[in-house]
């Protein structure tokens, strides 16, 4: 602990990290980012051990975007997510056990085992089942915003998407429609530089997704996605604008996924030097250093222990949970029971 600890730090969490964020708030952001990081790391091992079926798209390195954006949202605000949804789900408040159980394909999962890793979601915390079609959320989110506008609520919808989605027609149709309708939407682009293995500079001559906002009369902003406080500050402004009826905003967070695109990706398309440079900017390390500088190393260790304990509980819950009933696979596609389509 440094000797120049501010006097206020004798009381845990009372120091200001930024004008808006005190140490307790910052510690909460840290805890959430660490939870996502450790969730991803532990889930990966469980996957390799054969406990989790399917595939995984993980977000190590991108935690600051999910946590910083969701920190300024209300429970009644909604998000749409992508094939890489674990961080968004946990940041929006999806129950940790229900998320883990969903990855395990258990009945207690947030989608009862029907969704899996790529479709994590829960309406009770304001998250649609994640949309695993690139750009899929960019049009559906306009309907969320439209409903809020028509129902005269002050809710906001956030659409998370990657830079790869910005080359989908859905990105353009969704952003333009949201703009002309002045919908309360924040388009939150996580530019992690690669669409699977393809670098963005091969996919677009415009290096910044935010620049595309100008084409639709929308405000665009580029943010350091590896700094959760910067993310939060930009998201707070954008969400406030959207909530006030000023229309959508396009935020582009420059970030990096430390892991591969999906679980089998050995990342041969990018250099280890590049990876090392981005890991120097690890958002969790950066905030930890800032918190440590304000004085309380002990609480950081406590937080890490709490995160591991919570994950232990979630994994145990998932392991102990019952499998879904096989026959439930055949129901639930329609709201009303329909007779046709049952094959012998």
């Amino acid at each position, binding site marked *: 602990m440094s000797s120049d600890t501010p006097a206020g730090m004798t009381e845990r969490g009372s120091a200001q990290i930024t004008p808006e964020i005190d140490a307790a708030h910052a510690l909460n952001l840290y805890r959430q980012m660490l939870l996502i990081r450790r969730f991803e790391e532990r889930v990966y091992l469980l996957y390799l051990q054969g406990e989790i079926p399917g595939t995984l798209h993980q977000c190590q390195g991108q935690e600051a975007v999910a946590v910083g954006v969701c920190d300024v949202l209300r429970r009644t605000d909604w998000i749409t997510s992508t094939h890489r949804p674990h961080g968004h789900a946990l940041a929006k408040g999806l129950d940790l056990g229900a998320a883990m159980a969903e990855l395990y394909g258990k009945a207690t999962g947030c989608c009862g085992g029907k969704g899996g890793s790529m479709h994590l979601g829960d309406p009770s915390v304001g998250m649609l089942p994640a949309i695993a079609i690139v750009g899929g959320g960019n049009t559906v989110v306009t309907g969320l915003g439209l409903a809020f506008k028509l129902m005269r609520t002050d809710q906001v919808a956030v659409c998370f998407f990657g830079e790869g989605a910005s080359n989908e027609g859905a990105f353009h149709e969704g952003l333009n429609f949201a703009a002309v309708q002045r919908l309360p939407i924040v388009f939150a682009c996580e530019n992690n530089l690669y669409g699977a293995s393809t670098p963005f500079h091969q996919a677009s001559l415009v290096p910044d997704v935010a620049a595309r906002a100008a084409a639709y009369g929308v405000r665009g902003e580029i943010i350091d996605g590896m700094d959760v406080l910067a993310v939060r500050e930009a998201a707070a402004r954008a969400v406030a604008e959207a909530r006030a009826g000023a229309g959508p905003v396009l935020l582009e967070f420059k970030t990096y996924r430390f892991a591969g695109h999906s679980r089998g990706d050995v990342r041969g398309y990018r250099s280890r030097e590049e990876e090392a440079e981005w890991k120097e900017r690890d958002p969790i390390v950066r905030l930890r250093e800032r918190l440590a500088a304000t004085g309380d190393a002990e609480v950081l260790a406590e937080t890490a222990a709490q995160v591991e304990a919570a994950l232990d509980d979630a994994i145990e819950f998932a392991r102990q949970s019952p499998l879904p009933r096989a026959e439930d696979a055949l129901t639930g596609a329609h709201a009303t029971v329909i007779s046709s*389509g049952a094959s012998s």
Partner: protein
Amino acid sequence: MTPAAPSARGQRRLTIAEALREAIAEEMRHDEKVFLIGEDIGVPGGFGGAFGVYLGLTDEFGHERIIDTPISEKAIAGAAIGAALMGMRPIPDLQYADFLFECMDELVNQAAKMRYMSNGKLSVPMVLRCPVGTANRGAQHGQSPESYFVHVPGLKVVCISDAYHAKGLLKSAVRDDDPVIFFEHKLLYGSKGREQAGGMDLTAHVPEEEYFFPIGRAVVKRAGTSVTVVATHLSLYRSLAAAEELARDGIECEVIDPLTLLPLDEETIFASVRKTGRLVIAHEDTLTGGWGAELAARVGEECLYSLQAPIRRVASHDVPLPVAPVMEQTVVPSVARIKAALASCCEG
């Protein structure tokens, strides 16, 4: 709204366009969560939708509930789906069913799957109205793509062919909690289709009092004992015309309008096939992989021992639609083709 001419019996008769408009207006009055969204549907001085179905509705409901959009089918479908997920009941419009292909991801990957993926926590109550059918508009404005959607679990697929069922089914569809793709034939909206449909009066009695017609129920349009015909849209009217001609030869066709293709009213259709022992299916959608193939397979599975002759399908030939009327009418099911199939089916 144009007042409908009273029929001889004094009953009110409406065109399909009028019946649809009335259904929409009633549902918008009933539930403020119902709204319209699409291209050219409410622009002042505009068309009231590509086929005029929405004419006059902005006078009562205003532009907040009748939302004109950019030409962005993905955004229209996405906005409708998202709003439906939030509890609204949108009726989106894409002008032509051909344009559905612009938003297949929204319809197939999002609308149809959200309920299942969310384990029943969410639903997508929306009705997407889609004009189908040839009308000398060629390959990209005349298709009847119903069968693509019959293949998608999570959707419901309706095909209306008369004003009474148009209104009753549209009202049911708006109140249904599943996404409904609602197909209407361009030539059947109003008086224009009469001569092309074989000189039939396409207006129908539409009661003034409120009523609903359930999704998933077929109707027998003409009772008969010789052969069953299941047909939709214009092919239904051509089947009825063929049935009248064959009646002169003593062949009594039972003509069924399935009205809903997903879920299909197997009970009504199977009962008829078991009675007649013969089945002809007629639709303007193309032959291969068309919904007629699905129906034929089901009848084959469930009613094979009742059949006295092979099932016949009369569908559009497997080519894109040409514009020249003489070519177009060669491609789509004609009265003559349907009649020939019926006669052939009854030979055995």
